[in-house]
């Protein structure tokens, strides 16, 4: 299991470990959004939501764009792709190997 990749990616994993930040990423999966729209579902202040967005920005998971007086956020696919790769590898590891054990049991006398 490629555990080592986690070491380089720790900021990314720390960023997505927080439920609010995962929810923000979910919201951004629907497309680019201004802070106002991102803050709406949460019972917390805009600055608090902005802080979570800052963590996501620093981890390279989202990017921001100024549109007049508004800041708009969108997902950055590259980082998410790495997370996806790592997590699926981790989870798939045992599933694949238990299936290989099944084939081994079939083949061996």
């Amino acid at each position, binding site marked *: 299991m*490629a555990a080592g990749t986690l070491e380089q990616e720790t900021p990314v994993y720390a960023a997505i470990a927080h439920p609010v930040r995962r929810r923000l990423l979910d919201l951004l999966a629907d497309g680019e959004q201004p802070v106002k729209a991102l803050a709406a579902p949460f019972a917390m202040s805009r600055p608090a939501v902005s802080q979570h967005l800052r963590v996501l920005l620093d981890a390279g998971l989202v990017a921001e764009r100024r549109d007049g007086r508004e800041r708009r956020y969108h997902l950055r696919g590259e980082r998410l792709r790495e997370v996806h790769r790592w997590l699926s590898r981790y989870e798939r590891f045992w599933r694949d190997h*238990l299936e290989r054990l099944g084939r081994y049991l079939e083949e061996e006398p």
Partner: protein
Amino acid sequence: MTGDATPTGTAARDAIELAIEYPHPPARVWRALTESAALARWLMPNDFSPRLGHEFTFRVEKAEGWSGVVHCRVVALEEPRLVAYTWSGGPPLPETLVTFTLEPSASGTRLRLVHSGFDAGGPPALSVRDILASGWGSTLLRERLPALLDALRDGEE
């Protein structure tokens, strides 16, 4: 072929848990789990030996970002129903625990795998545990991400 390994749904918050049925008696499955040559065939090359306290490694080719070595120690051995070893796969992850439990079933053997202990290693490991446990990995990452990434390809900086 055997059935697919499926999550059992009772996983502790810090564990990966899978169960699978094999149409073979527990004694055979036990051999496949506790003989070094058999483990090498279906899992990874190793110097496992079925002795309590035995320290061993699984070794594969170095992969991107990974030394390819897993350090282990046998911590439970109850033939033919339970074998457990510690599993330490690299600095960012804590020492985790892999437990195989065998139960006789109508068609052969029900094997349960629990890989636990992800919450023991401080923040980075905690993140992984939380991500696995939240199901977020399976909804956003598995179901929505492929389409999302296709859509993002053009607009990405």
